[in-house]
């Protein structure tokens, strides 16, 4: 079988040529036709540029000149990632599944947990490719899915989780990014299917290990069947040199409820895309984004929620804080398709600037093709309220503590929505550590 992607012209940039080279080196598997189509489309469309609608604020040109190679499948020095990174203690989680550069560290089968079936994607591809192909198609040319296309073409392994019961404790997926050179790339892929009536909490935690952090092109899919309930977290806690493009796709059936948290606490350039489809009546989504800009960090958050059926509900809450020379972008869009009557959507995007050199851009958008819908949206960006600050100073609090408390209060809307109390505490701690005067603040939390 020929592996050459049928494209009319040779890829122009070094990055595209390197992706094509990775493609050539891949083993053929049962997903081949879909992967090939994904690769062709990616090479044809190329890396997203600032002319693409959802990439207006993020310049990826520096990536184009690099030649990427696959990141290693395991950590060479075999040192386990720092335990301090753990969001939950042993007693607080059902299990932690480790992924190194997208490769599950096996044996996954050893993780026998009631109510969830856990399998490596490579195994599913071999034994039941039909089941997997349902998730890989249809492919999308939309620019917010560009890196998802590349992931579909090139992921080697990943995790498939089928939730069948009602999980009491959260399940943690610890994604470790660890390179053995400067131009590594990883393609973590996770597919989570929540069977009818099931419920679970899944925390995807992205961390880095070692000197080199690969470019991470991760893609997660959530499918909630009728009446399923899922609380999903994705937490980015990599270092300042890390570039991460992540996309999350959610499909929701009748009366399913999804509560999603996107939390950016680390990374140098972090792009988080969320594309949710409320496909059947009664589906409900709460999307919460907590984006912390620190140092030179660039965070680009794109949330697109499509109401595809009547009586669907979505609530998007995004809070961004930007300090130093960081930049945070919140693109939040709701689309109500024709026929999605009585859809109810709410979008609240708020930004807080902590430094004169920081920047926050908020773009809430609405596209309504149905009657009898209720859609509200609001966006504000500003600095700390001087009246609030003066009130606290007049009570004797020092300036740093007062500012930190106000920043913390600003994020409270998102934090208080988290059901997993120990994870919330860990996230709060990580967040506070990036605020001025964190020691004092900890005492008053």
């Amino acid at each position: 079988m020929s592996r050459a992607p049928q494209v009319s012209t040779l890829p122009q940039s070094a990055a595209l040529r390197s992706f094509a080279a990775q493609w050539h080196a891949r083993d053929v598997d049962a997903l081949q036709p879909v992967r090939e189509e994904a690769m062709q489309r990616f090479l044809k469309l190329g890396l997203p540029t600032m002319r693409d609608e959802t990439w207006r604020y993020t310049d990826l040109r520096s990536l184009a000149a690099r030649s990427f190679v696959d990141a290693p499948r395991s950590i060479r020095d075999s040192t386990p990632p720092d335990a301090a990174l753990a969001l939950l203690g042993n007693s607080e989680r059902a299990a932690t599944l480790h992924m190194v550069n997208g490769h599950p560290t096996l044996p996954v089968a050893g993780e026998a947990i009631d109510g969830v079936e856990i399998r490596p994607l490579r195994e599913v591809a071999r034994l039941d490719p039909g089941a997997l192909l349902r998730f890989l198609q249809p492919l999308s040319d939309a620019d917010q899915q560009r890196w998802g296309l590349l992931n579909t073409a090139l992921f080697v392994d990943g995790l498939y989780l089928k939730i069948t019961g009602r999980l009491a404790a959260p399940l943690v997926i610890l994604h470790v990014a660890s390179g053995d050179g400067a131009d590594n790339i990883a393609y973590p892929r996770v597919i989570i299917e929540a069977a009818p009536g099931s419920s679970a909490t899944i925390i995807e935690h992205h961390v880095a290990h070692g000197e080199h952090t690969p470019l991470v092109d991760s893609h997660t899919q959530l499918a909630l069947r009728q009446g399923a309930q899922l609380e999903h977290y994705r937490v980015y806690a990599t270092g300042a040199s890390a570039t991460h493009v992540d996309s999350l796709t959610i499909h929701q059936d009748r009366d399913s409820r999804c509560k999603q948290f996107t939390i950016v606490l680390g990374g140098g350039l972090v792009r988080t895309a969320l594309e949710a489809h409320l496909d059947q009546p009664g589906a409900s989504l709460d999307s919460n984004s907590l984006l912390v800009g620190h140092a030179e960090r660039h965070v680009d958050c794109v949330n697109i929620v499509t109401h595809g059926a009547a009586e669907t509900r979505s609530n998007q809450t995004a809070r961004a804080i930007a300090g130093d020379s960081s930049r945070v972008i919140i693109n939040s869009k709701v689309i109500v398709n024709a026929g999605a009557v009585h859809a109810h959507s709410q979008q609240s995007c708020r930004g807080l600037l902590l430094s004169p050199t920081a920047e926050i851009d908020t773009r809430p958008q609405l596209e309504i093709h149905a009657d009898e819908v209720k859609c509200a949206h609001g966006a504000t960006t500003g600095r700390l309220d001087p009246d609030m600050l003066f009130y606290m100073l007049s009570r004797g609090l020092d300036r740093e503590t007062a500012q930190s408390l106000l920043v913390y209060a600003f994020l409270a809307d998102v934090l208080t929505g988290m059901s997993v109390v120990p994870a919330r505490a860990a996230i709060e701690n990580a967040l506070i550590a990036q605020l001025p005067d964190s020691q004092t603040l900890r005492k008053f939390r």
Partner: protein
Amino acid sequence: MLKITDLRARVAGRDILKGVNLEVNAGEVHAIMGPNGSGKSTLAQVLAGREDYEITGGSVTFEGRDLLALRAEERARAGLFLGFQYPVEIPGVNNVYLLKAALNAKRKAAGESEVDAYEFLALIKQKMKFMHMSESFLTRGVNEGFSGGEKKRNEVLQMLVLEPKLAILDETDSGLDIDALKVVSNGVNSLRDPQRAVVLVTHYQRLLDYIEPDRVHVLSGGRILKSGDKSLAKELERRGYDWVAGAEVA
């Protein structure tokens, strides 16, 4: 304790205080009355250290220290307290956390250890009972969703916990019904002490039925036009502020 000499201040390009002179001694309660726009609240905010109010002249000493050289938080720790006319709502910051942080900031400045959490809770519960406040205030955000009267009680509660040397209460009586006014007045009276002083900024005389002042001053047009004992308040009530302003012209 407090000595204000020829104090001048400007807010948003407008001269508001045009040479205020006032001296308050320990153990005294002073009332500053005056019509709307006379500069009463500006004076209170300037004394508390609001930075966007520009001081254009004069001096203020507090226990012999140059008050204007201190930042707002330093003034608070030195024992100055401002009860706000419009207490700010700070959703997400717990009412009790703020109070505890405030008390600890003051203790730290005085070289004392932090307050014991259990003792603090006992103290605050006792003071809340005195202020007729429900314990639900313990868990709420600072002034979040409080009614006007609840906010004012909360201000006095903070004052009782922080035990300032000098309390400046800016229209703490406005918007209170008669029962709340009594509670708030009891709170202020409980703090009266030969070592402390209170400055009441008020538009109406009725507060002074409950908190008896030693001195009454009329502030108008950014200056204190008349000072007297408590009978001055009664006279103002009868004759109106025009009487004082007119007296100045004459």
